């Protein structure tokens, strides 16, 4: 582009901006979209309230990486100073699942003991060895375990997860596990048949104190059985319990003697479950050196959605939907109004290079929408977060960069939708058609994905421009945590910027068609 061309495009953008700002109704629509977005966002955040007992709400547990974590398990361990090795034979893993028939959102009543549940092991129930910096929740750790249906695994610091052999335990077929500490490094091994100890993985736990806690652990996460029907998701949801038996436990290190089992104590990390006293962990040690340990909970990152106990940052942006409808209408009308009045001839006579007219219009409507909804999103998030916290909600902490991405992405999504509608307006030349198609393409899928079964919802959020809502996802999907990662729970099928790219692709395609038609058609 030559200097003169650049200047003339800048003039064109200025002219289109003059057009937009000089129609009061349009300017009011844009400002109202931003204000409504902010108000509804804060109001919907204010509707989130967590009721806690008078002692106060428990604070969010944060892991070493800054993310919210679950950290509840039964520990049978002892302090281990310096380098050392802990080895055990896992001989069985059984459990209890919540009684069937409890509807979604209504966990097992405390009065009903879990023993009334039915036998079964939660697929992600875990039993094995752990070396943890401390018994404080959220402490750095490394653990090697059998996960009931997911084989041998090495996990560290809540988010780290390395799969080992896909073994299991059965009578007469025990599983040998080993953890060694050397400095900050913790390495996991499994005894695999005749080939001896096999290394699964290692983790560098920087800041592991000289004296860490080492021992056996058992835990078993919330069990949920989800069923998707059109317009409703139902399911049973409740805590579960796992019980493991161990034998031949040895702890070797500085200051240990013999099997190193002196000072071995049982503790329920995360404390007893207030709602479900029956799930309080326990352990028994029989004289033959075997241990029977029961535990409930999880050592894993917290996840959002209905199973999660907290709310995500994007819950502070509920009002974006109102802005979406307004900016689609504005984008379409800013183009079709010129056709309706014959003004398009004045515009194209003043600038015969029609593609540039379209580009200038797109820049103006896109930047204006972005510039007004960006502060709206930022204010919504900042105020909404305060409101959420004031109502004792557990807000999953996310990094500043992630918050910025949600805010910028939401404004970008609205700007993209406005430009898409503008292109539709140029293509169709009638506001009724352009707004209808814009709404069907972008607004309707928002309603659809909340109504459709998860599989169909995923497809809606892959192939429609609405895929861009993925910019609002803040919590990552963890394969090692089995929950409902559906769009309604705040988990989208595409990565944030990939979803945004889908909208951009639609917008670019619509602009290309609009440019061709604008050039080819008589004005």
């Amino acid at each position, binding site marked *: 582009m030559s200097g*003169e061309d650049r*200047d*003339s495009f800048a*003039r*064109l953008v*200025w*002219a*289109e901006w*003059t*057009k937009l700002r*000089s*129609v*009061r*109704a*349009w300017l009011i629509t844009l400002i109202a979209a931003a204000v409504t977005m902010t108000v509804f966002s804060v109001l919907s955040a204010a509707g989130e309230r967590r009721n806690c007992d008078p002692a106060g709400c428990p604070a969010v547990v944060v892991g070493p990486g800054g993310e919210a974590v679950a950290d509840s398990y039964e520990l049978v361990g002892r302090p281990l100073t310096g380098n050392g090795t802990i080895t055990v034979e896992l001989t069985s893993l059984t459990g209890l699942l919540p009684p069937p028939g409890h509807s979604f959102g209504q966990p097992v009543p405390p009065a009903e003991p879990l023993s009334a549940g039915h036998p079964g092991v939660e697929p992600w129930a875990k039993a094995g060895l752990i070396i943890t910096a401390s018994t404080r929740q959220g402490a750095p750790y490394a653990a090697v375990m059998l996960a009931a249906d997911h084989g041998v695994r090495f996990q560290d610091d809540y988010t780290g997860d390395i799969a080992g052999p896909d073994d299991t335990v059965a009578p007469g077929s025990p599983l040998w596990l080993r953890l060694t500490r050397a400095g900050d490094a913790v390495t996991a091994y499994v005894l695999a048949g005749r080939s001896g100890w096999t290394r699964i993985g290692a983790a560098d736990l920087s800041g592991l104190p000289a004296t860490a806690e080492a021992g056996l652990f058992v835990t078993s996460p919330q069990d949920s059985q989800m069923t998707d029907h059109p317009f409703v998701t139902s399911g049973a949801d409740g805590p579960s319990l796992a019980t493991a038996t161990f034998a031949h436990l040895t702890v070797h290190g500085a200051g240990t003697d013999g099997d190193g089992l002196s000072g071995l104590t049982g503790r329920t990390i995360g404390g007893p479950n207030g709602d479900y006293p029956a799930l309080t962990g326990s352990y028994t040690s029989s004289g033959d050196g075997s241990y029977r340990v029961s535990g409930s909970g999880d050592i894993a990152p917290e996840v959002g959605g209905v199973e999660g106990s907290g709310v995500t940052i994007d819950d502070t942006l509920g009002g974006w939907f109102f802005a979406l409808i307004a900016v689609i209408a504005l984008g379409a009308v800013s183009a079709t*109004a*010129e056709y309706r*009045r*014959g*003004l398009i*001839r*004045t515009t*194209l*006579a*003043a*600038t*015969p*290079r029609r593609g540039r007219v379209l580009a200038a219009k797109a820049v103006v409507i896109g930047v204006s929408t972005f510039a007004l909804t960006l502060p709206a999103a930022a204010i919504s998030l900042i105020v909404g977060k305060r409101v959420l916290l004031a109502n004792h909600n557990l807000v999953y902490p996310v990094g500043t960069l992630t918050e910025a991405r949600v805010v910028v992405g939401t404004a970008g999504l609205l700007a993209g939708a406005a430009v898409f509608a503008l292109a539709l307006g140029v293509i169709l030349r009638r506001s009724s058609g352009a707004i209808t198609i814009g709404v069907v393409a972008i607004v309707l899928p928002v309603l659809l994905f909340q109504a459709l079964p998860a599989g169909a919802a995923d497809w809606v959020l892959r192939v429609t421009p609405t895929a861009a809502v993925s910019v609002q996802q803040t919590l990552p999907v963890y394969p090692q945590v089995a929950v409902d990662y559906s769009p309604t729970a705040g988990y989208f099928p595409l990565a944030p910027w990939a979803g945004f790219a889908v909208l951009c692709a639609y917008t670019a395609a619509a602009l290309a068609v609009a440019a061709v038609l604008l050039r080819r058609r*008589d*004005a």
Partner: protein
Amino acid sequence: MSAPDVVVAGLRKRFGATRALDGMSFTVRPGAVTGFVGPNGAGKSTTLRVVLGLDRPDEGEALVSGRPYRSLRRPLRHVGALLDAGALEPGRTARNHLLWLARCQGIAARRVDEVIALVGLSAVARRRAGGYSLGMRQRVGIAAALLGDPPVLLLDEPFNGMDPDGIIWTRTLLRSLAAEGRAVLVSSHLMGELEGMAGRVVVVGRGRVIADAAVADLLATLAGDRTVLRTAAPERAARVLGEAGGTVVRTGPDTLSVSGLPSERIIPVLTGSQVDFSELSAQRVSLEDVYLHLTRGQVEYEAEAPAGSTGTTEAAR
């Protein structure tokens, strides 16, 4: 004669089955107002849209200052056009309308206020255009055409909806713009609006040019002046006027139409022969007459002529 500012050469264009332009060719020269007249549907507006690069012709081309309009980078500095006075966003003020036009041409906002003052809209320019009368909209359109101080002006039906004051003002303005050396093309379906203003007329019908001539020449193409004479002795009057060289047609029991003799000569002939007459009126050929004469049969939508309304046409024969 200077080089033409607008050249329209052999334009043909169809809209479906309708042949809108059928070999339209003419030129617009600087320093004069050129009338562009023809019945509704004759292709005037289509021609102007083609000149402005809005519609693409099937054949032929239109050049402005020797270049296709679409190649102009700041076209409003070359050509000012008023196509449709209704083409205003009702929610936008006249000033803002002119302002965005100025912005895209790199014209200063000061010029916007100048043209607003020039067309006499200073009092209302900051009001929303939705409340403007058609006459005010025409003035906004003329202001927009003048914005870039262009050497060429193309105005489509600028007199529509104007009150008599507005029409007189517009004529004066267009004459003075032409006197400054600009090429001014004014289209109209009413020839009378151009009388006394246009030095040239391009008469079109059914998509092509019927006549393209100086107004004076056009008037001369029709037979000379006619005089209507009312007398109690029509036979005698016809005889003496015939002897004097006039052509006399009896148009009623006591009326004669005389041509070939200027009325200044009729009076001495009649008085010299002592023929009494009660009324003598000179009937000048108007541009309207020429236009109607030329466009007979070219009218796209012609109604069945009601009885008694053909007088003017008859007189033009």
